[in-house]
C-alpha cells in the first residue's frame, strides 16, 4: 500500500525504510523530465524539506521528504534516464529510500483514497 503527500510524493514502507517517488499525477503534470538531482546517501532531511529536484524542459520542481529521516539509497537509473520517472513513476522510477527518524510521522500522510480525492 502506498502512502501519499499533498505535494504529490508517494511512499512505500518496508520495515523502517521508505521508498519515495513522485506520483503518476505529478509526472503527468510536469511532462517529460530531462534532469533529476538526488540527495547524497547519508543526508538527513526533516519532513517537508526539499530532498530532490526533478526538471522538465520548462521548469524545475522540488521533491520534498514526506517524512524525516536519513537517505539510505538513491536510484541512479533515473539520473541517467529521467524519462524513467515518467514511464514508471511508482516502479523503476523511484527516487530515493530513507530510514525514518520518527515513524509516528507516517500518520500525517494520505492514503490512496484521500490522495485521489485531492487530485480529482
Amino acid at each position, binding site marked *: 500500500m502506498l502512502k501519499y503527500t499533498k505535494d*504529490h510524493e508517494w511512499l512505500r514502507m518496508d520495515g523502517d525504510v521508505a521508498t519515495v517517488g513522485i506520483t503518476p499525477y505529478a509526472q503527468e503534470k510536469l511532462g*517529460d523530465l*530531462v534532469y533529476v538531482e538526488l540527495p547524497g546517501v547519508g543526508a538527513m532531511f526533516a519532513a517537508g524539506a526539499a530532498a530532490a529536484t526533478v526538471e522538465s524542459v*520548462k521548469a*524545475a*520542481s522540488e*521533491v520534498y521528504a514526506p517524512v524525516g529521516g536519513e537517505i539510505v539509497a538513491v536510484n541512479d537509473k533515473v539520473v541517467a534516464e529521467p524519462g524513467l520517472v515518467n514511464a514508471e513513476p511508482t516502479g523503476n522510477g523511484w527516487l530515493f529510500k530513507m530510514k525514518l527518524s520518527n515513524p509516528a510521522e507516517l500518520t500525517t500522510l494520505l492514503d490512496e483514497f484521500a490522495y485521489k480525492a485531492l487530485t480529482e
Partner: protein
Amino acid sequence: MSEAESNVALRHTPLHAMHRRFGARMVPFAGYDMPVQYVPGVLKEHLHTRSAAGLFDVSHMGQIALRPRSGRIEDAARALEAFVPADVLGLGTGRQRYTLFTNATGGVLDDLMVSNLGDHFLLVVNAARKQADEAHLRERLSESCVVEALTERALIALQGPRAEEALAELAPDVRAMRFMDVRATSVMGEPCVISRSGYTGEDGFEIGIAGSAAEVLCETLLRHAAVAPIGLGARDSLRLEAGLCLYGCDLDETTTPVEAALEWTIPTVRRAGGARAGGFAGADAILQQLAHGAPRRRVGLRPEGRAPVRCGAELYATEGDATAIGRVTSGGFGVSLNAPIAMAYVPAAHVAADTRLFAEVRGRQLPIVVCPMPFVPTRYKRSP
C-alpha cells in the same frame, strides 16, 4: 511538488476547441488559454518540428495593419521609422523584416515583424504587448496612418524541413518564396497572408487568416503525414536553441538593441553618417552604443553539467565570488542538443566565446561556458 493555479478569465484563440479536441494541456499565457503541449509531450514535439513539420497556434500574437492615409506606402514607412531603428523605407514589397520598438532611453518596448504588403504594412507583435503597441502607434501615428488591430485574425505557424511540402499542397506558389518573403494570397479559397519565417530556426511559414477559416486550414494541414500540432512548450525550447529572444525575458525596456546583440537589425542608413541616421526613439543612446560598445551583452551559455540553469540564475566571474556579474534571462533544456542551454546578459569583459562563468543553482555555483548562438544551426531557405 508544488503548483500554482489561477482562475483569471482567459481569452480563447479561434483554434481553442481544436486544441481541446487534440488533448492539449492548456495553460494561461499572455491572457490566453493556450496549449503548452499535446499528448506526445514537449520532447517529441520539439524533435518532430526539427525532423518533419510542426503546426503552432500563435493567434494570441498581435497583428496590426498600418495603412497610409495618403495612399503612398512611403508615407507609412517614414512614419514607422520614427518608432523602429530599421530601414522600413528600403523594405521592398513582399518582404518582411525583424525590428524593435524602442523607448526614449534606447530600451526595447517590443520586438516585431514588419511586412510590406504593397499598399500597407502588417506588423506582428507579442501577445503581452499588443494593446500597448497598438495604443502607442494609434497615439503617435494616426495623423499619417490608419492603425487597425486585426483582432479577428488567426496566426498559424508551420515550421520544419517538411513545412514547404505540406503547405505547397494547398498553396503551390509558396515554393517560390524564400526566407522573409511575404505575400497576400489565398489558401483553400480564403484570403491570407503568408510569410516564410518563424520562431524555431527552421524553414517554415506563418499564415495569417480569418479566425473563422483557421480550424479548417489546420485540420487540412494536419492530415499531411509530416504535420503534427506543437505546443508552446516546444516553441520555447525551439526558439531558445535558435538563439531567438523572448520579449519580457531576454528583451525589455531596460535592454538596448546593442546590449541584446541585435545591432544587426540596425542598418547603415539609420546609423551615424547614414542618410536617415537616428530619428527613432532612443537614437542617441543606441547610436552611442553602436559606436562605442555597450557595457553588457546578451550571450549564449552552455552549462558544463546536466543541470538546467534557468531564468533568474545569477552569474559569477569566479567560483566563490559573492557579487553577481549577470543574470540568466532564458534557460532550459536544448532538446535537439540533449543538453542544457541558456542566454544571459554579462559585462563586456566576459562575452568572449569559451569564457567560463559560474551560475548559481539551488545554492551551488555550477560552471557554465559562453558560446556562440544559435545553439542549433538555423535552416532558413535563403535562396530559392
